[in-house]
């Protein structure tokens, strides 16, 4: 029988928190893995309380920050800090191939759901712990999020202009590095388990994963004792290279001209104005030496055109260029439309809204948008009955004991993220 998705049959219990853990499980869920996201109303995932909400109206099931990280998963509301909740968590672990958790190190130990405890009841479990700085070491308890780790790993220092403080890296940048490394390891671990029968523990430090993206800068320091600093959009051996202003409010296009041949093609595109014949710009070393003036002149030319027009002209001549897309423009980007990057699904509370497809397309086993991210506890009945085989009475008792949590268990707090 032909399988529909690449990861049909893979089972994951997702005890994730905020970004990295949930996004890791999300990627596998797009490809058919069955993921049960375990949450509780008593300590809701901070993303559930973070904007944006549909029409700005907050609510535990209304955050598109949360849905971003959790499509195609089953969601249950279970307090695993209560003894009966822990028991049910253990039953889910028995069912699963992979356990993923992303709390500050020590939280799962206190709950008795850490790797060492879990492997006693499920010896071949593949168990992921992800945190900002890893499970061991003097800074393991670090309280920051991806925003802080982005600075710790060196990215923030390297962003912006040399005459100023940092220009800032948007968001929790390092959260968007660790998941892909983890997924490769998790899938490798499944193959390893198939060959050897052995499970394993994955200890991911998001800091460490991120540092690998700056490996050339690290090696330059380790070998040559050179420290890299931010330098706007300068490239070591391309000019012009940067973002240039275009017609309209805050509209830009990126252009990168490598080598003299592309430079001549670039000059043809812009109609060979007088200044392009300036001998200072004839060679790459001349263009690098006079880069500031070059960028100004290029910007004066681009400013008369729409970003899309500049890109079309450049690309026709084989020059690397692209629109600096605003978030709204991503929805209209012809290439993203072609790839159906935005996948629209119907959410019970938010309504029909957009999700991001994975970055790759598989020819034989495409990903599938199967269901919107869960409301808190949306799939209690399905998971407790169909996966764990509980009876209606058992479920009713757990509800009465507030082990399965409901809106009545929500804390009262404002909303800031």
């Amino acid at each position, binding site marked *: 029988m032909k399988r529909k998705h690449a990861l049909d049959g893979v089972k994951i219990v997702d005890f994730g928190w905020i970004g990295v853990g949930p996004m890791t499980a999300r990627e596998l869920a797009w490809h058919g893995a069955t993921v049960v996201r375990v949450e509780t109303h008593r300590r809701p995932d901070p993303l559930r309380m973070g904007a944006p909400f549909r029409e700005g109206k907050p609510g535990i099931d209304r955050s598109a920050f949360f849905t971003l990280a959790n499509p195609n998963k089953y969601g249950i509301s279970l307090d695993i800090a209560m003894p009966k909740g822990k028991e049910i968590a253990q039953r889910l672990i028995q069912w699963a191939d992979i356990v993923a958790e992303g709390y500050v190190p020590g939280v799962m130990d206190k709950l008795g759901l850490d790797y060492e405890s879990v492997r006693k009841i499920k010896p071949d479990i593949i168990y992921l712990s992800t945190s900002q700085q890893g499970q061991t*070491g003097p800074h393991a*308890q670090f*309280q920051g999020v991806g925003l802080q780790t982005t600075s710790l790993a060196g990215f923030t220092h390297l962003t*912006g202009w040399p005459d100023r403080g940092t*220009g800032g890296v948007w*968001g929790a940048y390092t959260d968007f590095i660790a998941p892909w490394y983890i997924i490769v390891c998790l899938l490798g671990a499944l193959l390893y388990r198939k060959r050897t029968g052995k499970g394993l523990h994955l200890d991911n430090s998001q800091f460490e994963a991120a540092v690998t993206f700056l490996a050339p800068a690290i090696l330059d320091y380790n070998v040559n004792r050179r420290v890299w600093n931010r330098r706007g959009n300068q490239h070591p051996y391309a000019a012009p290279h940067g973002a240039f202003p275009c017609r309209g409010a805050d509209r830009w296009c990126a252009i990168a001209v490598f080598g003299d041949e592309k430079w001549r093609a670039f000059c043809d595109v812009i109609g060979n104005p007088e200044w392009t014949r300036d001998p200072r710009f004839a060679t790459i070393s001349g263009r690098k030496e006079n880069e500031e003036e070059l960028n100004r002149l290029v910007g004066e030319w681009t400013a008369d055109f729409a970003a899309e027009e500049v890109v079309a002209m450049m690309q026709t001549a084989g020059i690397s260029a692209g*629109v600096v897309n605003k978030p709204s423009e991503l929805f209209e980007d012809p290439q993203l439309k072609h790839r159906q990057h935005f996948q629209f699904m119907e959410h019970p509370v938010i309504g029909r809204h*957009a999700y991001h497809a994975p970055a790759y397309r598989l020819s034989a086993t495409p990903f599938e948008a199967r269901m919107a991210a869960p409301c808190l506890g949306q799939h209690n009945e399905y998971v407790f009955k169909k996966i764990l085989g509980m009876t209606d009475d058992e479920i009713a008792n757990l509800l009465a004991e507030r082990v399965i949590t409901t809106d009545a268990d929500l804390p009262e707090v404002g909303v800031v993220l």
Partner: protein
Amino acid sequence: MREKRKESLLGPYRVLDLTDEKGLLCGKILGDLGADVIKVEKPGGDAARNIGPFYKDIPHPEKSLYWFAFNLNKRSITLNIEAGDGRDIFRRLVRSADILLESFPPGYLDTLGLGYEGLKQINPKIILTSITPFGQTGPYAHYEGSDIVGWATSGMMHLCGNPDRPPVQITAQQAYCHTSAHAAVGTMIALHHREVSGEGQHVDVSIQESTLPCIMHAAEVWDMMGFNIPRLGDIFPSSRAGLPPLFMRVHWPCKDGQVTWLFGGAAVAGAVASTKALVEMANRYGMAMELKDYDWTTFDASTLPQEEYDRIAAIFTQFLETRTKAELYKEAVEKGIFLSPLNTAKEVSENDQLAARGFWEKVEHPELGDAITYPGAFVKLSQAPWKVWRRPPRIGEHNEEIYVKELGLSREKVLLLKQAGVI
């Protein structure tokens, strides 16, 4: 050698790596986990070997630190796949391979009969992973890309930099790193499917789409609220229900640089303790002023007027400017403050936590008479760990091993092909 890698996640698999800088990291990731990754370089070596920085600043294709960084744990052969003999040899290699990584323009390999359809004839189980700026098909499929264009078209660039200056990229190649990581994910998902079903497939990776996750929830903010988040430099616009966003400082000046710190109160888990601890630190130096009088347990930024926020922020600024990055970070780790320094590569290299976890890997480069310290494991594994299996290869270092010992080519033939520019 293959025997030794039983204790690795990907020991049984062979990868042919035809990528340029767009995809070099992908093969390294698979090689780090034990796969036999053969970098197929054009005769004379990969063009990416000419990218700096260089060992001791000596520009030489065997001394590129850039190339070292992304080619650890690979073997290298040189082969011109456009030459008839080169193609024949390549086809033989495809028979023993599980995965082929490439980053040519769409359609290029088809012209050599080595596109997915051609490869499938040779090895039906092969997984072909193709990395391009925008994907194999679509209106931009044949557009020229570059790292900055990936950063721009993904939407990430619009969100980075100061509001009164052009949008910026990080001063280091990033879009290609994201793409390589996503390519590794797509490849592994395809490999998993193959192990269950026996079926290979084509994995089509887009640089634009690989960089896109970095924009975090910016597209959702547009989708839900019709608002385009602008780049705000060191300010973060915290969205609030029924109120204008609160513009909060994210990066603060300190005595010897900058630190990242987002302060808050009751609404954010852990934020009360974090803010309290920094106020206590300021108080030790007699600089907490009116911050002492705030009740941080009930402090709620979701209703805070901007003017009041700015007043509080000014007091914090005055204090932070008297302390160094190291002092502040030490306190942050001990007391749970959401604060980190803006580290340089030097400070990353000297970081205590990375040292304590044994993150760094000293790799011998005998031909340089030196050892180079590399970033190590991206994930620590209790079994079958990440490992340095071999230093990055020299150009065609494994030609003999693969052409003569494995494929059984005679030395005479290798000599002929070498002179003919095939290997």
